[in-house]
């Protein structure tokens, strides 16, 4: 899968945020988006995810045979945890996986949680977890469904994924991302902190 962005321009609340952004990223690439606060990193990721429409320009998610809609091509994890406080981690994950068309079976959920070291939180109410636990549990929805299957692995769009994680967990997440890249995924992320992630190809986009 390849992402091709041409002359992208974005507005937020009536003001222009960025203009003339063009780049391409292939499978197996780790793309880091950098820029000052307000430069539009979150806006860019939201546009790539299909949550916002650009003011100008084009975003194309291409596979060999077809073009994909953002909803099929990418999984987006934003600042918010996207989990409901009143439900358990399992219930939240099943909901997220089912909506995304991924594997919401018991094994799928459990293996996703294990990869992020929070398997023990399976039946805890989301509202009772600490910040770090919440972040890790909500990141698990990227892994539901694993990397198998006939469909090409989805791209990950991660907005500040390392925030609120301790050093060990950051390393764990970095390992998860690296594994994803090795399996042919594409990961685009923003981060104020520099984190070491093993990747065959690394790109940087400065807004």
């Amino acid at each position, binding site marked *: 899968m390849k992402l091709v962005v041409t002359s992208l321009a974005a507005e937020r609340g009536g003001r222009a945020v960025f203009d003339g952004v063009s780049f391409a990223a292939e499978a197996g690439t780790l793309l880091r988006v950098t820029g000052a606060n307000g430069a539009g990193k979150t806006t860019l990721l939201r546009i790539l995810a299909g949550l916002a429409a650009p003011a100008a320009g084009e975003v194309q998610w291409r596979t060999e045979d077809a073009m994909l809609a953002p909803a099929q091509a990418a999984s987006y994890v934003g600042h*918010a*945890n996207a989990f409901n406080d009143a*439900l358990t981690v399992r219930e939240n994950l099943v*909901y997220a996986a*089912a909506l995304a068309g991924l594997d*919401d079976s018991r094994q799928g959920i459990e293996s996703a949680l294990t990869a992020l070291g929070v398997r023990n939180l399976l039946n805890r109410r989301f509202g009772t977890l600490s910040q770090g636990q919440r972040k890790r549990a909500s990141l698990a929805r990227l892994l539901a469904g694993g990397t198998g299957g006939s469909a090409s692995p989805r791209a990950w769009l991660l907005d500040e994924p390392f925030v609120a994680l301790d050093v060990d967990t950051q390393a764990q997440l970095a390992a998860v991302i690296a594994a994803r890249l090795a399996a042919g995924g594409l990961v685009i992320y923003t981060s104020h902190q520099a984190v070491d992630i093993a990747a065959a190809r690394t790109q940087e986009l400065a807004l």
Partner: protein
Amino acid sequence: MSLRVAVGAVFRREMQLFARRKSDWANPLMFFLIVCSLFPFAVGSESERLKLIGIGVIFVGALLAAMLSLPRLFDEDARDGSLELLLTSPEPLAVLILARVAALSLALGLALAVVSPVFALFYALPGDVAAMLALTVAMAVPTLLLVGAIAAALLVSARGGAILTAVLVLPLTIPTLIFGAGAALRVLYGESPAAELALQAAFMLLALALCPLAAAAALKISTD
């Protein structure tokens, strides 16, 4: 296949949330009870007069109670970020919204419909009228929720959203109000309610067909 899974997941989650937070359906019911109890204090307890206004009061009370639960459709999800899960799903947004409204209609609409005949007692209405009220309220609440979903989607997280939603939606519920209450009135006068029932059902089906699409468009507009 995955659409069915997604729809089932949306439906199940709404039910789980209703089970976890009883206030979500208990509060509208209490509101309904209180509103229906207020009018006799205002118009006098003479049963002939109450009988005349009873159908209207109960119907409007049910609609207002349903109205109050509209912000629940999207506001909470907007706060914790799970609205994005709906918006980035490969499944059609209109169908997912329909699933959510269906769950809300089932939980709340059923509760309101079951309780309406009880309030009919307050207004000295005979049993067959009470039964017809239950049926028409059961049809009116989903219609209101479907139309209201559009307004709720436009006003996600807006200041004073609940009141503005009511201002936008209540005029649009007048047809279902006319025919729903009309059917019960027919029964009160011993006539056939067939025409009114048919028309109310027609509006419900029209809303079913059009509103989810409009609500999906509205949600995309307000979360852009």
